């Protein structure tokens, strides 16, 4: 560095450096070279793959997506039959992945926060219990945990014939090795009003929150936003339900032949996957939460107390907002991990994206196309999650003045 400075001061007389020795020009030149090399590499890779496929006599292209799939999928949320095409099968897998990822993230976050706080608890038993939880779950490979939960779920539960009393008897709740059976709510005419009432309640909660904040800023008076909101959320749909003459009916499950029929079914594969993913990821989130809270210096608490703020409010208004700044970036990567880890579902028979595309791959033989699309989908999911969390992070970040 010092040497370079000397050289440039010597060359100052002429006013310019030769292009060969100009660090900026050299940098641009080599970066350009690198970009060309990368593009050439990608191009050669793709053309090589196409040439090899053609030479091996393997059909290629994406036309197969329109063909009839011809296989069934055990768990579908969006409409699908074996007459649907491969594209629809692909969507089924995607939706199944999204469902388990979203619910998994929801539970992992809640459990993670609780366990993280428990690790900081002054109660000896609670604190040790949380420590054991974290150290056990985060140190065992997830695949093993999934297999454990799946075997545990399957081996503990009775078969439907053992679980149900008699054929045809309707039961409100049954758990057996074919799944968790709950009554299914069937909407009838006029039930859309209940849905609108729900939307109105949520919107009202939001606006009351804004109004209350404004009022508090102006007058200092507080308003019980949470209780009011919760009340509205329960009361409005309930009112709509009663006014429209109770247009919802319940469908119960009953034993018919081999299996329980009817009702709302949560299959054991889903339960095992959700349990495994949520508990595993929660152990990492717990550590992130603990680290985030410990990162806020104790002086902040003391300062808040000195101002006469109650402990409860201190943690809500002083500690947590500052801890969030530390928590959110690593939390994002845990969310991404959970989504990507859901692909281990293939080991326990849950039809997630990888599992379904694996079947598509095998029935069509279009390995390159199917795998590249699957990778693109995961990439897109992760980037979207990441973008959302970055937006959330910037909205809770400390505003420095």
């Amino acid at each position, binding site marked *: 560095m010092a040497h370079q400075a000397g050289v440039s001061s010597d060359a100052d007389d002429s006013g310019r450096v030769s292009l060969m020795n100009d660090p900026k020009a050299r940098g641009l030149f080599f970066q350009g*070279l690198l970009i060309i090399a990368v593009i050439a590499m990608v191009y050669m890779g793709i053309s090589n793959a196409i040439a090899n496929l053609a030479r091996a006599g393997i059909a290629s292209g994406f036309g197969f997506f329109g063909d009839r799939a011809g296989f069934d999928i055990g768990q579908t949320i969006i409409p699908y039959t074996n007459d649907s095409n491969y594209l629809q099968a692909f969507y089924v897998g995607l939706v199944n992945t999204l469902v388990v990822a979203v619910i998994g993230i929801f539970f992992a976050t809640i459990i993670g926060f609780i366990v993280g706080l428990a690790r900081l608890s002054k109660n000896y038993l609670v604190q040790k219990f949380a420590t054991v939880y974290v150290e056990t779950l985060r140190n065992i490979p997830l695949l093993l945990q999934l297999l454990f939960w799946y075997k545990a779920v399957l081996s503990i539960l009775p078969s439907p014939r053992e679980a149900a009393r008699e054929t045809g008897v309707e039961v409100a709740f049954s758990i057996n090795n074919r799944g968790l059976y709950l009554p299914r709510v069937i909407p009838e005419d006029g039930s859309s009003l209940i849905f609108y009432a729900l939307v109105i309640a949520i919107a009202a909660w939001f606006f009351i929150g804004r109004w209350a904040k404004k009022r508090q800023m102006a007058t200092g008076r507080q308003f019980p936003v949470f209780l009011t909101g919760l009340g509205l959320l329960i009361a409005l749909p309930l009112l709509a339900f009663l006014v429209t003459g109770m247009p919802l009916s319940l469908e119960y499950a009953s034993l018919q032949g081999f299996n329980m029929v009817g009702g709302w079914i949560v299959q054991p594969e889903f339960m095992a996957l959700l349990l495994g993913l949520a508990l595993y990821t929660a152990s990492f989130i717990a550590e992130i939460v603990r680290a985030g809270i410990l990162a806020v210096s104790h002086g902040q608490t003391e300062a808040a107390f000195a101002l006469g703020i109650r402990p409860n409010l201190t943690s809500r208004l002083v500690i947590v907002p500052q801890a969030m700044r530390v928590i959110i970036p690593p939390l994002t990567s845990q969310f991404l991990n959970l989504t990507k880890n859901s692909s281990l579902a293939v080991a326990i028979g849950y039809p997630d994206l990888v599992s379904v595309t694996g079947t598509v791959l095998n029935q069509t033989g279009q390995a390159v196309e199917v795998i590249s699309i699957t990778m693109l989908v995961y990439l897109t999911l992760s980037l979207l999650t990441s973008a959302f969390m970055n937006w959330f992070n910037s909205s809770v970040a400390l505003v420095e003045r």
Partner: protein
Amino acid sequence: MNKKILSAVVGVAAVAGMGATGASAATLDDVKAKGFVQCGVSTGLAGFSAPNDAGDWSGLDVDLCRGVAAAVFGDATAVKYSPLSAKERFTALQSGEVDVLSRNTTWTMSRDTQLGLNFAGVNYYDGQGFMVRKSLGVNSALQLSGASVCVQTGTTTELNLTDYFKANDMTYNPVVFEKLEEVNAAYDANRCDVYTTDQSGLYSIRLGLSAPDEHMVLPEVISKEPLGPAVRQGDDQWFSVVKWVHFAMLNAEELGITSANADEMLESTDPNIMRLLGKEGAFGEAIGVSNDWAYQVIKQVGNYGEVFERNVGASTPLAIDRGVNALWSKGGFQYAPPIR
């Protein structure tokens, strides 16, 4: 900066190199050069391809690979095995990871035409069946409506299952796994009422369940499953080698040549036997192996009947009847073109 350039150059070189490798056309030359046959087998299906007590692979499909090695090298042990799941098998063959796929694989038109494969014959005629617990009290597949069915992904089985239930207007709930062991475990844990795969597979899998006697295979056969070895398209020489090893084993059974009497048969004056054992003509050279190729196959591996009996026949726990897999002359489908 220098590091960046270096990595870029290395990267380009690596990709350029990739173009040169890939599936080569002359598999026989490659096999001879490396000194062994790389054979794709199942992850463990007793009687067809599974490791035995001594840890060696054995079974009907394995013996075909051993036969190919015997024909090429005169040494039936010059085989290395790659256990493949149903989902991995075609990619492994297409990419050149294995030389021959001998893994209870059904010959279908789309596999034959769209996947770049050639099926070199049928070494086991099979059909898809159902296995259930005896306690269910079911004695026909037509009573299975509403059942949960365990099935392995990436198989023709999965599609036949759908077709069968659809054609008979029945419903079912598929429980799909990628690996055979996972399907077995799930069925054994009573996750499903029904296990479906090729009937030969059902017999084999039944033996591995915790209580084999509590399960039964239903009589219905719902599909044609001609199982056979597959090779890559575009390599006729290698295709011929695999095809004719299978035919040689069939012809040997038809001519009464066994691993025990192969040496005596060398003295035979029957022109059919002389041609098969390489005493007359140069049939081996025509497919790029030595003229005693069929003798080596029969001597070291055995004829088709011996192989069948040893692996899945009446003397084995599977106790599968020859049935349609008997020679054509004994009322079965196994028929080999003559060697002349």
